[in-house]
């Protein structure tokens, strides 16, 4: 698909885990302000793809550029880039020894060099935005999964990222908590945030995505508008996948 203003570009990306070829010649461009949902069966490489974008996983060959800059090697440059790329994990990964407020403020102080009160003010704004202003002084373990994930989103947003990566953000949640997280993500999408979302939530893909990327066996099989994809999947692999998940 042609993209007007590319923010993230992956060219011929290959990755191996030992013998396992987890990403095979991935070419993917994500435009500024676009919401791209990556779906596919488990083991298809979609989480790995998401993690290569901020180099939590290194790649064997190919190039990844963000905002025109190739991903730097390990070091200061990479840290600076990661600060601009927000990431939300399946398992939340909130800092267990810090309060909710301190979780959101920590990197603002350490990385963005904001003053503590300035960082805390920004954190409270963001917690308000995800509906958790009243929980600021609690510890992560005192919150429900859905609340923790919303804090994690606020923590990533606090860095004012150019793009947000979501690695199966609702997969570890009880069904009744999924919606509160998806609502926050919907709001973000409406606000024009560039988002790459690995998920199994087809409802979210239909309603919020500009494009759906279907992955299987380490390859991008389809890359299309959500309505096209869900109503008229082209590949057999996608048809098979959709028939399994949409029939309940």
């Amino acid at each position, binding site marked *: 698909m042609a993209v007007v203003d590319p923010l993230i570009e992956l060219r011929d990306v290959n990755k191996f885990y030992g013998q396992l070829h987890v990403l095979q010649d991935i070419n993917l461009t994500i435009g500024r302000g676009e919401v791209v949902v990556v779906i596919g069966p488990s083991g298809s490489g979609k989480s790995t793809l998401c993690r290569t974008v*901020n180099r*939590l996983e290194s790649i064997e060959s190919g190039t990844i550029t963000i905002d025109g800059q190739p991903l730097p090697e*390990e070091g*200061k440059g990479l*840290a*600076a*880039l*990661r*600060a*601009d*790329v*927000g*990431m939300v*994990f399946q*398992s939340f*990964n*909130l*800092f*267990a*020894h810090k309060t909710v407020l301190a979780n959101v403020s*920590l*990197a603002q102080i*350490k*990385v963005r060099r904001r003053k503590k009160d300035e960082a805390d003010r920004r954190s409270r704004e963001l917690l308000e935005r995800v509906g958790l202003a009243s929980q600021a002084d609690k510890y992560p373990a005192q919150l429900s999964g859905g609340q923790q994930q919303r804090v*994690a989103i606020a*923590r*990533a947003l606090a*860095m004012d990222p150019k793009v947000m990566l979501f690695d199966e953000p609702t997969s570890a949640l009880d069904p009744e908590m999924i919606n509160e997280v998806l609502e926050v993500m919907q709001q973000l999408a409406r606000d024009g945030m560039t988002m790459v979302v690995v998920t199994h939530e087809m409802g979210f893909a239909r309603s919020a995505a500009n494009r759906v990327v279907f992955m299987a066996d380490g390859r991008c099989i389809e890359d299309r508008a959500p309505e096209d994809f869900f109503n008229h999947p082209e590949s057999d692999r996608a048809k098979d996948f959709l028939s399994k998940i949409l029939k309940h």
Partner: protein
Amino acid sequence: MDVLTDNFSLYAEGFLGTVRLTVYSSLLALVLGFLMASFRVAPVGSLRAIGTVWVTVLRNTPLTLLFFAVLLGLPRFGLVLPFTVFAVIALGCYTSAFICEALRSGINTVPTGQGEAARSLGMSFGQTLTSVVLPQAFRTVIPPVGSTLIALAKNSAIAGAFSVTELLGTYKTLSELGYNIIWTFVWIAVGYLIITLTISALFNVLEKRYGVAR
């Protein structure tokens, strides 16, 4: 009982010598152990190698041999220091290998996601380690670090063989003076107990305060 009351100043001198050795060596061991643990989990290969060699060499060398190496070896390279300082170096370096491994086991108990989250926010290796990983590792390493320091206090007795003033060494003078050997050792043991139980108590307090709540 006479042994203690008659020779209180000798005992006190030895006791304070052991306390001094223990405190200084502990500080050295904690600093070096912290440094080496950071090296061992660093993203830089050469630092990891330094850490691994440090631990392997020091942990597998008998402490007495290490004392010989430091006290007799270093002066050959022109480094001449008081024996007490040499003893602190030998004890501190030796114990740092164990502290390093205790810290590293603590670091390994912190879920990898914690470090990943910190790095994904743009925090450097040092920031990730000091503000996210180590504070959480600290809670689980309190008991093993306590044990290691207790072992250090008792290992300091070896320094006595190298004419450093410490508690165990007092027995030589006392047995020459003809005191009952059993009572001499009982009071020496009591001295060590005071030191080791103090360390235990200190780490119990730390554990109550910062330990992992289960």
